[in-house]
């Protein structure tokens, strides 16, 4: 079974530039998540989709971050304009249902992450 695919793996941009990350979840997974992980911290949820609808985007800085999940499959996360504090790993994840934590169907599966450095 193919895992969560993300690209690009690494990106270096200057502040005020824009960047986009792409994610392809595990086939059949209805829920897709974008997490931001800053060095030394745990993953922080930015946005959660159920199929192609947004379930939670309360921690997404909407003045500069946007995300979409067209057709309920692939997703893109965009940052424009980037700030120095956006340097982090952006983790895409998916689950079958909605993350209630039961081993098996509701487990969250993570991609390898997209490493962003803003200089």
């Amino acid at each position, binding site marked *: 079974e193919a895992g*969560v695919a993300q690209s690009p793996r690494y990106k270096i941009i200057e502040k005020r530039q824009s960047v986009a990350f792409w994610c392809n979840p595990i086939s059949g997974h209805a*829920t897709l998540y974008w*997490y931001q992980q800053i060095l*030394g*911290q*745990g*993953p*922080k*949820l930015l946005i*959660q989709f*159920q199929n192609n609808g947004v*379930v*939670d985007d309360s921690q997404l800085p909407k003045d500069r971050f946007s995300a979409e999940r067209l057709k309920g499959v692939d997703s893109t996360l965009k940052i424009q304009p980037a700030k120095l504090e956006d340097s982090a790993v952006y*983790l895409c*994840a998916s689950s079958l249902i*909605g*993350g*209630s*934590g*039961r*081993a098996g169907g509701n*487990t*969250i*599966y*993570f*991609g*390898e*992450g997209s490493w962003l450095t803003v200089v």
Partner: protein
Amino acid sequence: DQQVKQNSPSLSVQEGRISILNCDYTNSMFDYFLWYKKYPAEGPTFLISISSIKDKNEDGRFTVFLNKSAKHLSLHIVPSQPGDSAVYFCAATLGFKTIFGAGTRLFVKA
């Protein structure tokens, strides 16, 4: 507002001994607790979980204990192996929301 806390940033253990990773939480409404393991340059992978109505769950060398009165859970790894060296994240779920702790880096010395 840190609802899930891992107060030890790192832990060093000798191979063959027990590793105990700790996690505290503040919200008594969490319904499930999970542990994820993360190697460098990889995404976190699910390790083990426990329902809030249980106090213990075991899977091979890994056991998770939940103390609801103390709002504390721990992950025991016995025996520890060098391949267990990684960052371990504690997480808690409330409905569809999952909240992660900051992680504890485990070093298992050969």
